[in-house]
């Protein structure tokens, strides 16, 4: 594999991980709960685009917003099933309910589509792009570009809109937010919508570049979990950096050794990192949320 292709692959993988990890961060911040189903939700988004592409003949760029909106709606339903009934229980309880929901999603996808990997629609039709003599894989570029747009959009919404301020206020201190009249329940539901919309986008982007199978959710969730932990809980840019680190680590070692060896070294590296820096590689700035 050429260096350019390797870089493009790593970037595309990292971009998809980043989208899953961002959803993870949004939910952890808003609720203090770890969403173990985030990976399975991304896979669900991937299968949704596979199904959509089978029905209508539209390019991926057009399918993407449709899938994201649908997944956002699904995210609200998810919140009402797996989070709201348990919001006064200890965080471990929500953790388990999301695991249960993940099992339901994985086996639902398995039942509907079968266990075999499926290929999603490409974002843009066409072959590699040639740019001043370099041959660049078009899909990887498109994935990176779309991810950049989504992250920039998220950053804009969170930092520069009244809605984003209310979301952040809820995440920082729900009691205080309620006291100043922010509808905390609705904000949490919106957070789930946003987070799972992003997961849906990740699923769609992955489904074309790397295929998608019902069992992929766990692996995706693990990578996002690692990315978020390395980046320091609850930090948006930390999660993006963590996702890129994980993706490049994995891509490069998989080429040098093998996929399963890359996995093993990734997890050993996580253990070493946590052993040396119990609060993650890039540190933790927000308050602890156990």
């Amino acid at each position, binding site marked *: 594999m050429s260096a350019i292709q390797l870089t493009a692959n790593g970037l595309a993988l990292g971009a998809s991980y980043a989208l899953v990890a961002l959803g993870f961060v949004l939910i*952890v911040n808003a609720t203090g709960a*770890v969403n173990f189903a985030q990976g399975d939700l991304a896979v669900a988004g991937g299968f949704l685009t596979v199904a959509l592409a089978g029905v209508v003949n539209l390019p991926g760029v057009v399918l993407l917003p449709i899938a994201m909106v649908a997944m956002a709606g699904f995210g609200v339903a998810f919140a009402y*099933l*797996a989070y709201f*009934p*348990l919001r006064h*229980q200890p*965080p*471990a*309880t929500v*953790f*388990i*309910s999301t*695991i*249960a*929901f*993940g*099992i*339901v999603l*994985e*086996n*639902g996808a*398995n*039942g509907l589509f079968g266990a075999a990997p499926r290929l999603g629609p490409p974002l843009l039709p066409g072959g590699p792009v040639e740019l001043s003599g370099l041959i660049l894989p078009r899909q990887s570029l498109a994935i990176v570009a779309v991810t950049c747009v989504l992250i920039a959009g998220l950053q804009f919404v969170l930092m520069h809109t009244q809605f984003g301020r209310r979301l952040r206020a809820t995440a920082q201190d729900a009691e205080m937010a309620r006291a100043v009249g922010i509808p905390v329940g609705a904000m949490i539901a919106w957070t789930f919508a946003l987070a799972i919309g992003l997961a849906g986008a990740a699923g769609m982007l992955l489904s074309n570049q790397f295929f998608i199978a019902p069992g992929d959710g*766990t692996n995706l969730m*693990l990578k996002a*979990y*690692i990315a978020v*932990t390395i980046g320091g*809980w609850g930090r948006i840019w930390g999660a993006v950096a963590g996702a890129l680190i994980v993706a490049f680590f994995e891509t490069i070692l998989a080429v040098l050794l*093998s996929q*399963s*060896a890359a*996995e*093993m070294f990734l*997890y*050993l590296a*996580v*253990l070493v990192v*946590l*052993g040396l820096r*119990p*609060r*993650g590689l890039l540190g933790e700035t927000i308050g*602890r949320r*156990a």
Partner: protein
Amino acid sequence: MPTAWRKNAARAAAGLNPLYAAGTVFLVVYALVFADSYDQRILAIAGIYALLVIGYQLVFGHAGAISLAQAAFFGLGAYVTALLATRLGLPFLVTFPASLAAAAALAALVALPVLRLESHYFALATLAIGQAALAAAVNWESLTGGGGGLGGVPPVSLFGFAITRGVWLLALIWGLVAVGGAVAWLLIRGPRGLAIRAAREAPMAAGAVGIDAGRMRFTLFVLGAAYGGGAGALHAHLLGVVSPEVLRLPVMVSCLAMTIIGGRTRVAGAIIGALLLVHLPEWFRFAERFGPLVYGLALLATIIAAPDGLTGAAARLRQFLWPGAPPPPPEIPPRAGSLSHAPASTELKVSDLSKRFGGVAAVRDVSFTLRGGEILGLIGPNGSGKTTILNLITGIERPDGGRIVLNGEDIAGWNPHRIARRGIGRAFQTPMLVESMTALDNVALANQTALNARAYYPGRRLADARAEAASFLDRLEIGSSAMHRRVAELPHGARRRVEIARALAAHPRILVLDEPAAGLDENEREALRSTLRDLAAQGMALIVIEHDFHFLSGLASRLICLDAGQVIAQGTADAVRRNRLVVAAFFGPTPGEDGAP
């Protein structure tokens, strides 16, 4: 003594939920009469999972740590057994203990770096252990057989008889479940059970009465892993093959689901959870591909409908069907003897104590000496470093400089539980209690003698600790009906007194109180003052933080006034009250005068 055993056995039987007794009878009859050999095999697998889950409850339920490494210990046990049995031809009596030991050894090894991690970091680290083990099993083909695994593991053979199937197999596996369950049950009974619960639900409070929460977590983690290793050994012998499947996440998820559905802390919960979830796929076989979906839905439904699991629901059902299962009668010994046996020879010498938080000097070069029988009052405006000094003395914060010498021993920088064991007791500014426990048990858990004695039966030791706790609570005017209520339901004043009783139950030489009078009414304050005076008269040394000058002035033998982390005045209450710097610290510099430093 046989009579004592009979009495204990009778008491244990009386505590048995009749629902479980009925369930056990049903299962035994099913297993012996109705089950065919396939059904018996499924029951055997359920027994293996029950062992795995009993071990997992120690970690997840009792230590309160979301470990995701239990499947790794299970897999390790399976691989160790497979290797020993196939390569070296060793029998079950060797492979089983070896698997147990290997899992415990791995747990002990990883526990040191991993157990200090907090919640999500701990979950991820344990997950990483499992995933690394899985990748190792796939990669290290020469040892593990790679993806295909190791085959040809012989069935369990004991004293020349191969146990392959049927009733003997069930007897072996469920016999081990019974032994493992009994060990876990004994471990969590009595005063140790209270201590484990306190360490899980209120670690600060546990440390303040001398409970070593870290060691407890370590022990439970290692022991839980040993159960996993043993279960893995049985699994390898029963199936005859070991493949990387035993290390994959679904095993961990099953274990977690069984624990949640059965209940996190009751041994019966582990057994019910395992039986149910092992049989569930059998019952939903007709649903074909969608079968596993039911599994997830059952888990989701249980956690929403019964967050404390089926055994929690069963306990409620029992209460509903046979109400008035009697709480132990309050046994309050007569009000005799003194509240404290602290020797008057106590001497605490604090010198040049300093602590910085970032750029803020919270405590600067504070020195004082305290002797048995003295009451030292600490006053000062908010943020002047009073509570920080108590935190340094009790080990919650580590000092940056200075010495804290208790009877000739420098205790600066020690862990809270070690300091508590040396005889420094504490009540916090906001009472830190184990909210889910009764007032009685909150005090009983501080009884280190009962916790550490091994001489007699845990139930008896608990009864003794409770009796002593009752006498402390009684002396602090907590009535016998309040004693048996959960502390979460008690009013503020009573909670403060429960906390003081808990500190006293650990028999401290020095008692440290952070604003004990805050939120109390006039009568309660007066009662508290007289209690504190009694304690000092009996030889105890006290440090009391208080904002109310009036409360301290007739009580404290000496006052220290702090401002911005420094001692600005000390001496008798009157002298300190008249001190110009003290007045300035509380009310600002007097108009017309220069602003004093």
